[in-house]
């Protein structure tokens, strides 16, 4: 039971980080002026 709780906690932690990374992504456009 304790191990199961730990597993659940680990999954929730990873999910939070994944969601965080998925929400915002910054892109550098420096040096792209020659592309267009």
């Amino acid at each position, binding site marked *: 039971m304790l191990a199961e709780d730990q597993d659940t906690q680990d999954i929730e932690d990873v999910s939070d980080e994944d969601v965080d990374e998925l*929400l915002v992504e910054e892109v550098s456009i420096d040096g792209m002026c020659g592309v267009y």
Partner: protein
Amino acid sequence: MSTTEAPSPVAETAFAADRAWRLNPQVALRDEAFGALAYHYGNRRLVFLKSRLLVTLVSSLADYPSASEAVAACVPERSHAAYERALARLAASEVIDAC
């Protein structure tokens, strides 16, 4: 003799959820199927907001006295922490600024 300190390469804005925030007036949001593109005309940063809910949250930030109240009103409770971290990243990119 000058002792010049090197300026910080990125003027990071400390995000405080208990403060009022708004979409930076120098930022244009363009709606996309995945969420929105945010372009900052000052620092020329391009940021993808990859959630419609995050776009709604950012667009309505100025309607609330604090970011945490905006999050509480717009975001399901289980996702509050993730969206507050997303706002912190947007503050660091100057997509949002404190009122």
